[in-house]
């Protein structure tokens, strides 16, 4: 049993990946494919922020440029396959994420050295500048970046691997499953390498690593390249999924998405960004069907995590796991459960408030309909409910605070 222990998470994930399409319906596949891309993107971001202590606001530059590299390669495959000869004629679309990786890593290699002198605010600012520079610069070279239209392509070209024609989203799923597994495995392995360990040391105490003979700048630079490459790989996956790349994929908004996903999931834990990617992508794509305030909800979740749970959602999971290991769960769960109830009461109050404001300003929101709420903003009942929910949440929290502290 103990022999399998280290492999258990991987075997479970593999099983999940294999069973997922059978469990979920056909139309969910499109969303799952996007989640796969975002998992790799968020994890690559966390190589910088969580493990290397470098806060970046320009990570989408590598994602986007990797994406562009892959889509141009896809077009090259299409052209070469038509002619029937040349290097690209034998290059399967299946391997395009590798082109994305090369693109992202190459860009990081070229621009990275001057950036990695300092971490912290200076690094944040310079990556912000890089991101905006690349995003606005794309408009100037329409033959490479396609202007407003972007570059589109067709993924059903070139040699077919594993019988995957990539015609339907369901085909693309197996492509995504392979690459998300491979990329997560690779990034996990990276944390185990001496370089991965050193990057943690540089994050925690750059002066000391300097003293023991590892210039922090070199370590940061290498991590920067690896992370840029993985972001490019995610970009390559996106190019195959969407068959179009637009300049928006390099923008500050896209960089912000990586940051939000990683932070919501938890920066300190390897699998945190995976949790974050799943939650944030689902919120974005499912909530937007029901409410026009979906981005607001994502923003509030992010803010709440930063303020009240700096270790993220995965941090919470980790606490539960540890409590279970130490056989403390039985002692702790009542406090946690009531705490969770308090949080739920607050969330309900918040959602109700947002929906009421929405009702006043714009008329009915779909979320209220979906929840079966007949809202009337003029009635004191609705606002009274908000107050009661807030009070109930506060009461539950205060009553059990002592219990949680005693059992912490």
């Amino acid at each position, binding site marked *: 049993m103990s022999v399998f222990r280290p492999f258990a998470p991987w075997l479970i994930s593999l099983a999940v990946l294999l069973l997922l399409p059978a469990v979920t319906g056909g139309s969910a596949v499109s969303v799952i494919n996007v989640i796969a891309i975002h998992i790799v993107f968020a994890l690559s971001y966390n190589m910088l*922020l969580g493990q290397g*202590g470098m*806060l970046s606001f320009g990570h989408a530059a590598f994602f986007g440029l990797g994406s562009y590299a892959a889509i141009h390669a896809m077009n090259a495959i299409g052209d070469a396959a038509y002619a029937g000869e040349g290097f690209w004629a034998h290059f399967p679309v299946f391997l395009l994420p590798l082109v994305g990786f090369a693109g992202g890593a190459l860009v990081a290699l070229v621009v990275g050295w*001057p950036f990695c*002198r*300092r971490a*912290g*605010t*200076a690094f*944040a*600012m*310079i990556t*912000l*500048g*890089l991101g*905006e*520079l690349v995003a*606005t*610069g794309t*408009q*100037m*070279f*329409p*033959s490479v970046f396609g202007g407003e239209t972007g570059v589109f392509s067709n993924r059903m070209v070139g040699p077919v691997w594993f019988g995957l024609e990539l015609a339907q989203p369901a085909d693309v799923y197996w492509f995504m499953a392979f690459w998300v597994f491979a990329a997560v495995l690779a990034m996990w392995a990276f944390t185990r390498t001496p370089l991965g360990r050193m990057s943690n040391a540089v994050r925690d105490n750059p002066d000391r690593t300097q003293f023991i003979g590892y210039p922090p700048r070199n370590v940061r630079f290498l991590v920067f390249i690896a992370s840029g490459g993985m972001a490019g790989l995610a970009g390559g996956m996106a190019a195959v999924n969407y068959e179009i790349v637009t300049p928006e994929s390099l923008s*500050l908004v896209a960089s*912000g998405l990586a*940051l*939000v996903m990683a*932070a919501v999931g938890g920066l300190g834990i390897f699998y945190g960004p995976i949790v974050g990617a799943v939650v944030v992508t689902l919120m974005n794509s499912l909530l937007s069907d029901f409410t*026009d*305030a979906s*981005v*607001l909800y*994502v*923003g*509030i979740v*992010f*803010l709440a995590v*930063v*303020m009240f749970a*700096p270790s993220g959602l995965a941090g919470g999971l980790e606490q539960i796991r540890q409590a279970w290991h130490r056989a403390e769960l039985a002692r702790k769960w009542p406090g946690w459960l009531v705490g969770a109830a308090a949080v739920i009461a607050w969330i309900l109050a918040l959602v109700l408030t*947002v929906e009421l*404001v*929405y009702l006043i*300003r*714009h008329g009915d929101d779909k979320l209220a309909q979906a929840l079966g709420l007949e809202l009337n903003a003029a009635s004191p009942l609705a606002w009274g409910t908000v107050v009661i929910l807030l009070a109930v949440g506060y009461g539950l929290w205060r009553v059990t605070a002592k219990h949680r502290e005693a059992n912490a």
Partner: protein
Amino acid sequence: MLETIVFSTLNGILYGLLLFMLSSGLTLIFSMMGVLNFAHASFYMLGAYFAYALGLHIGFWPALFLAPCLVAVIGAVVERYGLRRVHASGHVAELLFTFGLAYVIDELVHLFWGSIPVSYVPPDYMQNALFTLFGTDYSIYRGVTMMIAVFMFAALWFLLKKTRVGMMIRAALTHGDMVGHLGHNVPRLFMGVFGFGCALAGLAGVIGGPLLNTEPGMAQTLGPIVFVVVVVGGMGSLIGAFYASLLIGLLQTFFVAFDASIADLLGVIGISVDPYGEVTGITLASLAPMTPFILLVLILIFRPCGLMGELEP
């Protein structure tokens, strides 16, 4: 040609002064608290929307004074109950907090005022021409805006250099601990400065809203440029921020006005290339949106403390 230069200068200075209003608050906050407030431009947007909403009921001028005060209150509350809480977790947590705050404020603006630009316009009499030069009108509103900006700059200088509060702020900028040891309430000072900085941003929004279109995307367009101003000017240097604002304002306006391409410029020094080539056909106008960021990256690489600053970020 002359008229282009005159109007580009006027517009560039106006834009630069607006940028300075925004960045002066940010640079104060940064140098004092070490927080690079990502949501700063969102407070600018709040200023514009508050002025619009208040203006519907109490008229333009009262709103001009009231809206920044409201923004200041909100800023102070954010500092007291949000920022102070995450302060313990370090600068990265603070940056993340303000980043999330920017998200939420932007979305709240969507929620309250919708996603379509609101028609926030100055009173009719201010849209008339102040003077007409080369057949082009220059509206009273632009003139007033410029005056408010200059007045604000003077007031800020007076406040910092000539008053007791200003002395405390300047002392806290460099020797925060010492000010605390002397028995001043530093957290309250922080709260005040944060609120004040937000009010400056709000004021920029109040007068900039009618010029730059009051819409929910206005924070996102200006936010990164404000950072550029602060970094290029030198973190914590007000006078640096002033020069950097004017520099960026003028550069962007002149680049659009003089639509020379790279080929034209090369032509001036005697090199002739294809004027419609992909690289050589790039015009200064299309470079305009990039100039702030080119400046930012170059400054951070070659002179990390900025034009006038003494501290590295």
